[in-house]
């Protein structure tokens, strides 16, 4: 046996021995430990005035993303109202770990309030925890981290709120009675299915007794597929009065089909869409009104929640109340969640005030 073969053999045996040791015993799933929760501590003083001069930093999923530019703009407006200093920082790509070094930087800068939207709920948890230990108050918006890693989460809308809003919109547009179809994303999209289920529930109420959902079509959040599905719906159900598409891709594709078809103005269309995608269809009369939460209000509310936390007015515990400027009073729900409220409805009258 040559010197070389011997070395290889000894190496192999060493690796095998290591594998065997590692395989017996050791840390397995389920035997692991978990972090101790550090939910709201201390007591809130509901009468405390908002502190002036707070350093508020917005850390979006990604900078130069139109949605977050608008949301952060709302945060800036709020920060100016309570006389804090505002800044926006963040990574140029929305990757899971890229936000961590920004959180560390903010914590190093002794920032009072960090408002962030998580690219990955777990990846930023450790950094947020250490920022909070260094004295920062942490508010998440749009996308939450784990509840124990932040003080308050500002949620854009509840599933119930969205379902109720969509039913009200379509009901008003078809005159309270008739057959409607739903154009969804994919058959297994959790959000979509929850909303559709709640919409069915909403329709069981006596005031919507005349409205019937004939089918749910799936456009897979693909523009071309959604376009074809819309075409198919109108052909299969000649007496269709309206379509609800609670997805931005679907509603825009459906509007594009309707706007050039004979059904324009006869079949109502509503859903969740962005003003920039829907503007031309609202103006040419294809779509009367649609909805989405207003990202600027979301950022605005998040900034006020942060200021209320940093001023000691709230701690993030359920039941606490705080004032959010022009949006009014908000109450913190379970797990430190604040809900922005019903979606904003966009129509001829207001669509030009929004750019996102």
């Amino acid at each position, binding site marked *: 046996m040559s010197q070389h073969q011997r070395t290889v053999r000894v190496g192999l045996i060493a690796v095998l021995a290591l594998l065997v040791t590692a395989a017996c015993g050791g*840390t397995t*799933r389920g035997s692991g430990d978990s972090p101790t929760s550090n939910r709201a501590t201390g007591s809130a003083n509901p009468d405390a005035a908002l502190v002036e001069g707070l350093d508020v930093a917005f850390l979006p999923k990604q900078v130069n993303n139109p949605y977050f530019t608008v949301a952060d703009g709302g945060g800036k407006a709020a920060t100016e109202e309570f006389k804090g200093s505002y800044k926006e920082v963040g990574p140029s790509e929305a990757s899971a770990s890229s936000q961590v070094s920004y959180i560390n930087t903010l914590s190093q*800068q002794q920032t009072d309030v960090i408002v962030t939207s998580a690219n990955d709920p777990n990846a930023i948890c450790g950094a947020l925890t250490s920022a909070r230990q260094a004295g920062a108050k942490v508010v998440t918006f749009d996308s939450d981290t784990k509840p124990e890693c932040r003080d308050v989460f500002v949620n854009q809308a509840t599933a119930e709120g969205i379902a109720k809003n969509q039913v009200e919109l379509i009901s008003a547009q078809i005159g309270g009675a008739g057959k409607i179809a739903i154009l969804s994303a994919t058959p297994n999209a959790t959000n979509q299915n929850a909303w559709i289920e709640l919409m069915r529930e909403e329709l069981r109420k006596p005031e919507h007794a005349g409205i019937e959902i004939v089918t749910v079509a799936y456009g897979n959040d693909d523009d071309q597929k959604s376009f074809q599905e819309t075409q198919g719906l109108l052909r299969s159900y000649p007496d269709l009065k309206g379509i609800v598409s609670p997805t931005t891709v679907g509603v825009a594709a459906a509007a594009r089909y309707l706007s050039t078809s004979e059904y324009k103005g006869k079949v109502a269309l509503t859903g969740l869409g962005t003003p920039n995608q829907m503007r031309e269809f609202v103006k040419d009369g294809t779509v009367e009104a649609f909805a989405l939460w207003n990202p600027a209000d979301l950022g605005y509310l998040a900034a006020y929640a942060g200021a209320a936390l940093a001023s000691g007015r709230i701690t993030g515990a359920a039941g606490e109340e705080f004032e959010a400027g022009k949006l009014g009073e908000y109450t913190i729900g379970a797990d430190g969640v604040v809900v922005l409220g019903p979606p904003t409805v966009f129509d001829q009258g207001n669509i030009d005030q929004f750019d996102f």
Partner: protein
Amino acid sequence: MTRDALRAVSTRWDTVLLVVLAAVVVTAGLLVDGFASGRNLQFLLLDVVAIALIALPLTLIVITGEIDLSVASTLGLCSAVMGQLWVAGLSLELVVVLVVGLGAVLGAVNAVFVTRFALPSLAVTIGTLAAYRGLAFVVLGDQAVADFPFSWTTAASSTVADGSVPWAAVVTLVPAVVFGVVLHATPFGRSLYAMGNNAEAAAFSGIRVARAKFWLFVASGAVSGLAGVYWTLRFASARADNAAGLELAVVAAVLLGGVSIFGGRGTLLGVLAGVLLLGAVRNALQLADVAADTLDVVTGGLLIASVVVPNAVGLARTRWRRRRTA
């Protein structure tokens, strides 16, 4: 020290880098609020550990005149597999061993293409850069596995004696010393420079070029796998897109560290200084609220400068010498 010896030291790139690094640290300490603190040192070191780890074998590879661009994708695939194995119920100790082994296998695949089929490593590893990242998404999709034990994930960012030096940085010194000794103090290390300068001449003088390169790629894969374990625990998240694009940061650090992209030149000390310099510049600019896009421009500028300056200095020197002898 004589004037000539002084000049020799001052014109070595790694010495220049260490001086620049010191200058950056002092300047940032004076000008940037929050830079000169223990906590910031901890953040800075944590940010560069993965880059430093992967840069070690890559330094040796680039010195032989090859390159491995698949390192970050290897890291991502190893992270994804680590997540799946953990979900499957294997013990974490075993998972770590298997994942590092997987990294070595992925490196061996590169090695086979480069050494057996004599394909250019640039082309091969651009291919596996895409392929390994794709496989990572096949393995884990866009899901994340995040329920690793808390004691392990906190260990990944814990510090020595609860001070400001992370354990991960200390542990990284071990492979750094090993790779440093291999490169600078063994016949094998010498032979790598020979290959980089002239592979044919090296082969004729009895150096087993293919075998050396084979093991370097295996080492690169294994270390990338280890970096994958570290990355997964540090961010408590096994994901297919982990460390996407990190290969650029690693290659930038290696080149800034004075390793010639054409092979045959460079030191490990220089590369470590390069890693720290890039990390310090990014950290200081971030603390000074410089926007992310500007930051990327600065990093790119530094990289170009690191390639241009030594070449320009060398060119100027030969011209000056020629004029004197003429």
